[in-house]
Every structure is written in C-alpha cells, then in structure tokens.
C-alpha cells in the first residue's frame, strides 16, 4: 500500500508538471531539477545513512517509495513551485508559493513516517520544514545562475 501511495504521488507531480504552464525554459527547468536532485540525494543520505537521524526501511517496496520521494517527488515539486513563483512579480505571490511548497513537502515527508516508510530518531517535521525552505531558496539561486548564463548566450547573438 505504501508503494502504491507514493507511486500515485510520483505520477501526480509528474503529470501536474507536464500539463502546467511553464515559465522556465527546458534548459532552465532541467538545470534546476538536476541541482535540486543532487542536494536532495546528498542531504537524505547524510541525515539517514551517515548521521542516523532518520531510520530507513529494509524492505524493497517501502525503500523504493523512499527513493521515489527523494529523487522524483521532492525535485519535481520544487520545480512546480519555481514555475508558479516566476509567474508573477508580486512578493506575496512568491512567498505564498514557497510556503505552500514547504508545507506540501513537509506533509509528504510526514506521510512517510505515518506509513512507517521512515521513522524519525533524532529528527522532526520542523527540521524538514527548514530544509525544504532552504531547498526552495536553492532552486531560486540555481535558476538565477542558469538564467544569467542563458542571457549572455542570447545577448551574444
């Protein structure tokens, strides 16, 4: 059941991203996705496998659900947030989109513990929320880097 729920969530975020109006180009979206994926993989490995702050499942299907969350749900949700964030210039729109994404991501991580996929040993949802806030800010920085690089390329022609 846990696998099915996370498979559905994975399908849902990919589908939402596929059909949504995107503000970022293909290169920008891919670049931000890759940067967030690297951060997500490294962070989850360090807190779970190195520092043992979170306990991961030993069974294959729940572990696959954890991998889907780490490698697809988290980066794609951050990407959806970034595309929504860039749709308008208003501060409250941007802050609202980031906060909504943080709440959703923290909620999904909490769902992992509720479904016994992972368990917090020396961790809590508050730390998750701080991490996801920083992750969304990282996405903004990554976007500004690739945007600047793209502008230079276009200006040159």
């Amino acid at each position, binding site marked *: 059941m846990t696998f099915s729920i996370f498979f559905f969530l994975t399908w849902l975020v990919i589908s939402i991203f596929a059909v949504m109006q995107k503000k970022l180009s*293909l*290169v920008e979206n891919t670049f931000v996705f*890759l940067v967030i994926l*690297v951060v997500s*993989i490294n962070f989850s490995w360090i807190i779970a496998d190195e520092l043992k702050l979170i306990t*991961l499942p030993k069974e294959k299907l729940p572990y696959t659900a954890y991998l889907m969350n780490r490698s697809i749900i988290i980066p794609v949700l951050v990407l959806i947030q970034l595309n929504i964030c860039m749709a308008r210039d208003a501060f409250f729109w941007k802050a609202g989109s980031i906060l909504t994404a943080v709440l959703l991501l923290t909620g999904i991580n909490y769902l992992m513990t509720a479904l016994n996929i992972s368990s917090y040993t020396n961790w809590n949802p508050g730390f998750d929320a701080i991490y996801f806030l920083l992750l969304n800010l990282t996405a903004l920085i990554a976007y500004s880097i690739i945007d600047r690089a793209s502008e230079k390329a*276009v200006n040159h*022609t």
Partner: protein
Amino acid sequence: MKLWETFDKNEIYILVMLVVVFVAFFMFPKKLPRHITLLFLVWGFTTSTFYDFTIGGGLMDFYKVNDSNKYELIDLLTYFLFAPFSYFFVYFYHRFRIDRKTFIFYVLGWSILGLLMEQLSRFMDMIHYQSGYSMKYSIAVFLVTQTTTALFYEWITRQQRRTGVSDDVVKSDNGSV
C-alpha cells in the same frame, strides 16, 4: 565525514584525472553556448551521484566508490570527474554533427570508452564491484545513460531551433558564446 580513509592509489588517480579532464575542458575551444555547457556539466555530476546513491548504495549497494561504503569527501570529487565527460560527450556530438546515420555508432563508441574507463577505475581501486555486480550490468547503465543524454541534447537543439531564439547559439561554431 572523512576526507579519505587512506591516501593511496585511488586518491592519486582521482586527483590526476581531475587535473587532466579539467585542463582539457578549459583548453578545448568553446563551441557550445555557456548555458548548455553549464547544463551538461551538472548533468554528468548528477548522473554519477544518482547512480552511486541508488544502485551503488542503500539496499542494492552494487558497488563501492573508493575506500569505504561511508561517504568520504573524495567521493564528492569523484562525481566531479564525470562532469567534463558529460560535456565532452555533447561537445563531440555537436562537433562531429552526429545524425541518424551515426547516432548508434557514436553512443556505442562512448559506451565502450565508458566501460574501459570503468575497468581502469577498478584497477586503480576507485570502484569495487560487490553484491554479485559485474561489468555486463554496466553495459546497460552506459547505453541507457548515453542514449538519454544524446536524445536530450537533440530535444534541446530542436526546441531552440523551433522557438528561433538561439539556433545560432546552439549550432554556432564561432566559439565565443
């Protein structure tokens, strides 16, 4: 997190290779636009990280990078090694004007090169197969990764040509973008 377990053959190999590939990266004339260069450097880094933390770690744990299954900082440098390789894959794809007739040969050639580099990395103790893993499984990994990379580059160039924004940027040979 340690810098490394012991400084020996694999650490020297990684540091030498890093110097070689990054010197090559800076020496080669720039034929690709800056944002495409940046994207494919990150693409290579992310791909190696993704494989190592998915099939090379966790429940599967098919191979070990460097001296231990723990995360060493030298592991991070190892992932940086893959960034210029990804760039050069796309760079020569562009330079040699790979098309429908040459696509398969290009991907096969790079897959063979990848397998040879992997064996060299095993010899230098950078990679250690475990849990029943063998080279034949890497064939699938290289074919999938390099085909995906080439198709993704094609997608980008076609999309940019369609939008008309930067056909010259992507296909330019002036070397200064």
